């Protein structure tokens, strides 16, 4: 117990120091962005791990929850910033803005998690996967197309009444071009390393404790055998829906941080939440080992850095030479092939992922 408090204090000091010192320590902002993104992706993987790993459901629409979180957080941050009179982004002020942004992100995402979780009671496997995929695509397409709706060439009545109002509201999100604050001046990036790394650490602990609590145990039992779990009093309905809500809240927080992360892009675009994003999240969980908290974290970090490594490889002279030779060569597209290859090799050698369901640093019970 004492040790826990001590570790907590050390982490607090470290993230505080990072908030003020990271810029000086690492001058290349793209590297800083990468580190922060890695932490956010850890949250993405940890949250998806609750549904796909522990509960054994198969969601391929995690990007939908990320999108909801990102837009909610961007909206709140930008408007709150205006309301506070604009000006400079200070560390002190981030204690008002970031919590407000993240709470709204978590709430919106969690609410939709509940709605999407309900069909999981009746649907299994591929059918549920299709529902989650549909949900994510609906979120993305609604945001993308809202603009077109209101600017219809026939002039005006693009639906009328409630739906017209809704379309006008949604069109404020900027459609295909993305949302960059009410006056299009960019979203103020309030979440510094303190928030990003701090939350990653905190939620990592939460994920660990969820897994190693009676609740996590019940969830894993449900995954193994639903009828047997029900026969010992574990209600599939409650546990499945709750697991969806928890995963959605986690994804909402991750999306929320992504939108307002220092050194990130000051604009939220629907294209960042296409199927690719969901697929990346699944890759993180499966690479690390379904059901493993530390595995999910490792998967999140690995996937983030692999993107960067490939980008760096793009600029090496050897690749440049190759590019001159073959014009259509695009390593970013190749990334998918490399992923697929890595996944196939991993599934062949270690079908349970790097760690399986085990954990690093796991005490013997």
């Amino acid at each position: 117990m004492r040790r826990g408090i001590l570790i907590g204090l050390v982490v607090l000091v470290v993230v505080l120091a990072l908030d003020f010192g990271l810029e000086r320590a690492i001058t290349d902002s793209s590297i800083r962005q990468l580190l922060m993104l890695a932490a956010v992706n850890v949250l993405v993987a940890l949250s998806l791990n609750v549904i796909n790993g522990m509960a054994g459901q198969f969601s391929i629409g995690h990007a939908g929850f990320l999108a909801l979180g990102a837009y909610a957080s961007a909206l709140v941050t930008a408007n709150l910033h205006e309301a506070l009179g604009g000006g400079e982004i200070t560390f002190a002020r981030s204690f008002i803005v970031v919590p407000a942004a993240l709470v709204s992100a978590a709430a919106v995402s969690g609410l939709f998690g509940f709605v999407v979780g309900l069909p999981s009671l009746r649907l299994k496997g591929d059918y549920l996967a299709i529902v989650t995929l549909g949900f994510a695509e609906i979120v993305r397409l609604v945001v993308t197309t809202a603009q077109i709706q209101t600017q219809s060439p026939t002039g005006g009545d693009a639906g009328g009444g409630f739906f017209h109002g809704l379309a006008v509201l949604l069109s404020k999100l900027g459609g295909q071009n993305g949302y960059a604050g009410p006056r299009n001046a960019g979203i103020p990036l309030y979440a510094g390393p303190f928030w990003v790394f701090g939350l990653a650490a905190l939620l990592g602990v939460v994920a660990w404790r969820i897994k190693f609590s009676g609740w996590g145990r019940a969830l894993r039992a449900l995954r193994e055998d639903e009828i047997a779990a029900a026969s010992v009093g574990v209600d599939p309905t409650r546990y499945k829906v709750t697991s969806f809500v928890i995963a959605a809240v986690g994804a909402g927080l991750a999306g929320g941080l992504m939108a307002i992360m220092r050194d990130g892009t000051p604009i939220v675009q629907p294209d960042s939440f296409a199927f690719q994003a969901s697929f990346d999240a699944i890759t993180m969980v499966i690479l690390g080992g379904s059901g493993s908290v530390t595995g999910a974290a490792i998967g999140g970090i690995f996937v983030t850095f692999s993107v960067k490594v490939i980008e760096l490889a793009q600029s090496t002279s050897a690749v440049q030479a190759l590019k001159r030779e073959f014009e259509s060569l695009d390593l970013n597209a190749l990334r998918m092939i490399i992923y697929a290859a890595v996944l196939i090799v991993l599934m062949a050698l270690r079908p349970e992922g790097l760690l399986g369901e085990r954990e690093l640093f796991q005490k013997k019970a």
Partner: protein
Amino acid sequence: MELSLAHVTKTFGGLRAVGDVSIEVPSKSIFGLIGPNGAGKTTVFNLITGVYKHDAGSITFGGTDLRGLRPAQIARAGIARTFQNIRLFGQLSVVENLLVACELHKRANLASSVMRTPLHHADEHAMRERAARLLDVFGHTRVADAPPTSLPYGSQRRLEIARAMMLEPKLLLLDEPAAGMNHGEADGLVTQVRWLRDEFDLTVVLVEHNMKVVMGVCEEIHVLDHGETIAHGTPAEIREHPKVLAAYLGKDTNQASDAEADEENATASILRVAHPSRAPLAPIAGAPMLRLEDVRVSYGGVVALKGVSLEVMPREIVALIGANGAGKTTALKSVARLLPVTSGKIELAGASALGRSTEDMVAAGVSLVPEGRSIFPNLTVLENLELGAYLHRDAKAIAESLEDVTRLFPRLGERMKQDAGTLSGGEQQMLAIGRALMARPQLLLLDEPSLGIAPKLVEQIFEAIQRVAASGVTILLVEQNTRLALATSQRAYVLRAGEIALAGASADLARDPEMQAAYLGG
């Protein structure tokens, strides 16, 4: 009356599984629910626990109507159960399997678990103490952190009972608790069930085929056949009840002539074994079809076979018997190349089989009928059988095999279009054997074909096994029922703790006084 069923009816797609059944289970009694396979016993359990909803009638427990309650709520109401086909949580450790069943007694909610409040710690502590106590009672303390799948079958059954007891139930439903247990274990079960009732002051209802267990422990017995009540009474009354004898043991008037017909059939060849696209397994004269020499198998640090040597001659039925956990299934699996062998030799018709894969073995003419049947429940009977001939391409030969299997098991012929999962336990066993025969094996490995099956059907299945052997198939039989195994086979090996303890002609072994000691591990 604690548990009461009144005029309960349940139909599945036109088939009446349970029809107008009324049962009153007195409080704190040990109550038996018996009947031949397919009588609807497990369906009754599934109706009580809410897995299925009954179409008509009512089920009440302690005065509460259970209609409309979900399975988890029924568990909360104090009804715990075990399953005919063991349903443990495979990826959770033994102790975790028990802890899951404590969820409903927990006071700490998820938030307080995440905060690791004192309440959470108090809960975990109390749960672990309960689990430790039950593990101790059921003799699982040593394996608390092991995966349940590593335990022998009988231990898994006891673990399921322990898990059910974690609920602190008022009513315990046991679905064939003695299936897969040997005589010693079954006797132990009788004592354990009585002890449970007295110690925890609960009502026990059990479905069981082992009559020694049923008659030994039950105070009242209810008999079902084809989903309907045929008798009810004390063990002594049930034993003498003419309807029960007829339904259960097949003592009907046609039996005599049937037996005669069977006698004739048993010697005639019923299967076509040779396959047009396969070279037959032909050991040189006097050489064995299968030979194991000093075979050692270990998994996860546990040595399961400690140097087993045995031989099976062509066209012979050889039984491999022994207590639970003696290594019988391991031996069969290593022959079927489902388990890697640490050292030793396995030879098929004189050639080493160690380099072969399981598919190779099947293609060469060796098929395994696995313990617990492992049929494909969501495929039809026909599809299951067709998959048995998966490696064959010759449509005519497949059609012939199908014809042979239907002749051997006419019941399967009647149920070709049905999902295999809807078959009764005995029919599923027939299907598992039929599926293996579809590959036209020359060596058939049978793992516990009598497991959890009513006596009448066991008889039929063993007759079928005799007929398969008469068609020229060599058989290695693993069987819990020693008497039956020795009566069916020509020779037998007795395994004890991974070693051959005794071997010889079955008829001699059946009379051997050492036998009991070896078998019971005394």
